[in-house]
């Protein structure tokens, strides 16, 4: 419909808010309470404008005309209107620049500043503050408020990660609304009323995995990221727009660095992927990169000790020791969050050495690539029938948030020239959620289950049966057939519930099934899941264990044969080993085996149990310092860009290959990011150097996925310890002081009754060998864990799945009571 904003005529779609129309017309109004992706509430009153519209005569249905001009007469609203909460109307006229409007806007700035301290020089938001900008643009520049400002608590720790300055709060309610509308964890609220209102919580910290986003959306310096407080001023930061390598969601990040150190991470904007949200693991998990014990120079073992040397020297050492070795007995393993470029480099190295023993770890038994096109995150957000197997909150937090978007049932709005809609009028505070569209199965109670219509917690050992039974039932009813009922006992739900799920998925055109390593680690379960999805016509989203597991599989960074996989690298067949960012020596048995190797080359950013055994240690960069490309869960290629972090001579794996190539006297493909991209262009038909920050979807692979291992004889997974995904990377926890203070030690979760049976209490710290790896964990009671099962967070070396816990060998390091005393 046609409207006019300050003499600019434009055509907008009905339902648009006036504020978006104003911005679309190239004009500006100030606003604080509106936030893209959240409901408009009209609380800050900053975006006031004079609005008028023509009216129709009730009787004739014609426009009432102005007697003088003959044009439709504009009836102005008596008061200035908040443009964020007003919808456009045909023929509407908006005035944002007249004297009256300016006076109103000026008055609102003045009111907003009444209780806002003028401490911009010490405020961490200074220089990037919406209020500062708006006060400058729309304020009168002088204060008429001569009284004492409101005094409230300053630097109040809402949690270990978030600091609240209540004096600076301007009550825009973005944070409070955020918790209700986005993650659905209502852990923050206004307390008191009127001029005494402040935000606060009664919970212990902020129990939500998505708390950090409130520091991004706070328009003033009231909510601050504790990890970055006072570390630098906004204009001093170097901003790097990149992609998260913490999980497979591919969330956009902005890394702020200063003098070679990462000071903070903020969410980037990618409308299709993470909108402007990231999870706390991604946001606060960066401190490890600046830890003191970074390996910054190559090291070579001389007379039993590692001594620092040059890259050329280290490469020469490797080349000499590898010369004449049977190439098939050399193994190369990358961690699953390596970039595609690193994958290309590793492949080139393996080819040069003549080794098929190339793998990424952790890699599930089944392929993480879907049959055909994957569901996109937008598909998830617009789905009306969701079936989730696993715990996406911990595996890829953004998927959790996009599932919650789907529950609101509002299709994402198209982008305006000025970006996402500032005020999407379809979003409301406290929208009813369509819980019934979401079904979740997981072997323990997950966080997301409280939002689900149906939640099932089958025993961890029978996940495969459940999927098999569902697949069987779904296949049998494809053409209206009757299921045999043979598998009904394994359903873990009633047959009626299963049928309801099948019917709901099948009758929907936008059904999405999401699963992760709980399924992928068992080829039978994977097969059943794929069958189920196919027979109900659902798109699939498979969450890989690591950020780029799918991408590395896609470009075939894979063993040439199943028997050359990662596990084979720790058999006597292997003589030399290149390990990139992996630490298999946490398993004492593997450590013994590594000692027997002729050559162990470790590419690592920090000293590890494995680097202690290495013959050559090469300094590696972290995921924040890489240039490269990653493929996220929905099959979108995303650019990874290097933040300028001080890490000595550390490089990514392409750098390793470059140095080795020089020592070998050859130029290997993938010896630089640029060289690797030439290969990628051939493989994927995409120029990775040209990728926009928001990425580019990759066409699906044709045919059968390549990464699945052959289904050997069927062995039911057993064990009493379930390794579960973890948003917070436990291997980094020790080097992330703030995150550790908030989350504590890595948790060993069990049902209170289970703990009681073993004489443990919440808070005890124990070392428990799980699957051969001694894990030091803090005991935590959790009603959501089935009795008799122990949950521990995953490590790159210990993928998600069932293991045997050696309870007899459990050692209590510290007891909870001793700690209190």
């Amino acid at each position, binding site marked *: 419909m046609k409207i006019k904003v300050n003499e600019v005529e434009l055509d907008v779609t009905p339902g648009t808010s006036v504020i978006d129309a104003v911005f679309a017309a190239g004009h500006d109004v100030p606003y604080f309470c509106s936030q893209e992706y959240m409901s408009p509430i009209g609380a800050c009153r900053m975006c006031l404008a004079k609005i008028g519209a023509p009216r129709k005569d009730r009787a004739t249905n014609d426009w009432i005309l102005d007697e003088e001009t003959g044009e439709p007469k504009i009836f102005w609203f008596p008061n200035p209107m908040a443009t964020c909460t007003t919808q456009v109307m045909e023929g509407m006229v908006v005035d944002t620049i007249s004297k009256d409007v300016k006076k109103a806007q000026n008055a609102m700035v003045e009111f907003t500043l009444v209780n806002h301290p003028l401490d911009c020089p010490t405020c961490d938001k200074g220089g990037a503050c919406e209020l500062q900008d708006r006060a400058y643009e729309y304020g009168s520049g002088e204060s008429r408020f001569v009284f004492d400002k409101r005094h409230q608590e300053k630097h109040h720790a809402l949690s270990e990660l978030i600091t609240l300055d209540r004096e600076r709060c301007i009550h825009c309610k973005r944070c409070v609304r955020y918790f209700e509308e986005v993650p659905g*964890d*209502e*852990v*923050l*609220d*206004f*307390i*008191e*009323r009127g001029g005494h209102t402040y935000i*606060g*919580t*009664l*919970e*212990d910290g902020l129990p939500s995995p998505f708390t950090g986003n409130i520091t991004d959306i706070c328009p003033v310096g009231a909510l601050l990221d504790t990890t970055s407080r006072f570390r630098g001023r906004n204009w001093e930061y170097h901003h790097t727009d990149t992609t998260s390598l913490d999980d497979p969601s591919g969330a956009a990040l902005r890394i702020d660095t200063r003098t070679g150190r990462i000071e903070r991470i903020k969410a980037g904007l990618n409308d299709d992927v993470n909108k402007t949200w990231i999870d706390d693991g991604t946001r606060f998990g960066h401190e490890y990169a600046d830890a003191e014990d970074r390996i910054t120079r190559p090291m070579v073992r001389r007379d039993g000790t590692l001594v620092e040397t040059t890259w050329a020297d280290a490469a020469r050492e490797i080349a000499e020791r590898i010369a004449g070795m049977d190439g098939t007995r050399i193994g190369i393993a990358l961690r699953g969050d390596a970039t595609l470029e690193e994958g290309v480099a590793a492949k080139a190295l393996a080819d040069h050495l003549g080794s098929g023993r190339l793998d990424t770890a952790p890699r599930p038994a089944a392929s993480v690539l879907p049959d055909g096109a994957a569901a996109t995150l937008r598909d998830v957000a617009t789905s009306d029938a969701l079936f989730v197997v696993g715990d996406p909150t911990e595996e890829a937090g953004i998927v959790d948030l996009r599932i919650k978007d789907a529950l609101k049932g509002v299709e994402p709005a198209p982008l305006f020239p000025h970006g996402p809609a500032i005020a999407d009028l379809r979003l409301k505070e406290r929208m009813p959620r369509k819980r019934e569209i979401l079904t979740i199965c997981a072997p323990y109670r997950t966080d997301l289950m409280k939002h689900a219509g149906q939640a099932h917690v089958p025993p961890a050992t029978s996940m495969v049966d459940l999927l098999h039974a569902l697949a069987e039932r779904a296949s049998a009813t494809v053409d209206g057939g009757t299921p045999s009922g043979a598998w009904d006992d394994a359903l873990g739900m009633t047959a009626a519930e299963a049928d309801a799920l099948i019917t709901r998925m099948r009758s929907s055109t936008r059904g999405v099934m999401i699963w992760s390593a709980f399924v992928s680690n068992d080829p039978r379960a994977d097969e059943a899941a794929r069958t189920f999805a196919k027979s109900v016509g659902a798109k699939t989203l498979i969450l890989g264990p690591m950020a780029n597991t799918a991408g590395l599989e896609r470009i075939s960074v894979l063993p040439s044969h199943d028997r050359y996989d990662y596990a084979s690298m720790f058999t006597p067949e292997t003589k030399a080993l290149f390990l990139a960012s992996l630490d298999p020596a946490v398993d004492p048995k593997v450590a013994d085996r590594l000692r027997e190797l002729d050559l162990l080359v470790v590419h690592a950013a920090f000293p590890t149990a494995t680097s202690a055994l290495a013959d050559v240690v090469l300094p590696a960069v972290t995921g924040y310092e890489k240039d490269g490309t990653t493929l996220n869960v929905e099959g979108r290629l995303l650019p990874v860009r290097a933040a300028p972090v001080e890490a000595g001579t550390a490089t990514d794996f392409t750098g390793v290959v470059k140095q080795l190539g020089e020592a070998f006297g050859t130029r290997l493909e993938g010896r630089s990011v640029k060289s690797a991209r030439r290969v990628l262009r051939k493989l994927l038909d995409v120029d990775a150097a040209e990728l926009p920050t928001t990425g580019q979807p990759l066409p699906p692979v044709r045919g059968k996925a390549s990464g699945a291992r052959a289904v050997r004889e069927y062995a039911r997974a057993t064990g009493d310890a379930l390794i579960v995904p973890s948003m917070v990377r436990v291997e980094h926890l020790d080097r992330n002081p703030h995150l550790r203070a908030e989350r504590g030690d890595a948790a060993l979760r069990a049902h209170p009754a289970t703990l009681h049976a073993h004489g443990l209490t919440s808070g005890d710290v124990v070392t428990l060998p799980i699957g051969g790896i001694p894990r030091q964990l803090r005991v935590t009671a959790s009603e959501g864990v089935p009795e008799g099962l122990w949950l521990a967070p995953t490590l790159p070396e210990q993928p998600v799945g069932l293991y045997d816990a050696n309870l007899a060998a459990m050692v209590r390091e510290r007891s909870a009571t001793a700690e209190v005393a």
Partner: protein
Amino acid sequence: MIELNTIRPYFEDKPDVLDEILGRYPEYGRRSAVMPLLWEVQRHERYVSEARIVEIAEIVGLTATEVRGVMSFYSTYHGEPVGKYHLQVCSTLSCKLAGSDEMCDHLEDSLGLVPGETDTEGLFSLQKVECLGSCTTAPVLQVNDTYYERVTRDELDALLDALRRGEMPTPKRAREGDNAQLGAAPLAGEAFEAGTAADAALADAEAAEPENPEGGAA
């Protein structure tokens, strides 16, 4: 939250009360029960402690933060215990014009309290409150839930004495106009002449307080 482990939940032995309150609202409106549950606790404990907030949050399926947010919005829920007699002086315009400021001063002097305080014995709490909806019978003093209307100095002193003795006197209803006391309700079938009763009441009032001869427009 530590309190919760040591204090017995309030509703533990009152399933009937809990059921009655929750039963007032439809299942989808369970959250509505927050306010009555807070009232229930406050009526018996004279305030709502943090432990009770956590308990109520669990009952209605909210976070404790939300319950706290709701509770703190309203001025008549107390986070701290108030005295046995919570004296609330309406101080808004109509009552002010009838002398509520002076009444409050008098109470402050007699009790040795300033508004917002509770005495050391926990007998009296004094509070200035906003409009109590007794404007035509101002000034009004609310003792706990009971209104004492058109309170005079002597009546207030008598009231305080009675309260100190532990008695709650019957509230005085001093009303004129169409809300005046008119007498007993008629029994079934009896005709009730409201007009005559009202006239009688008016006549009484006029006799007692002759119209101010100086009263008039400026």
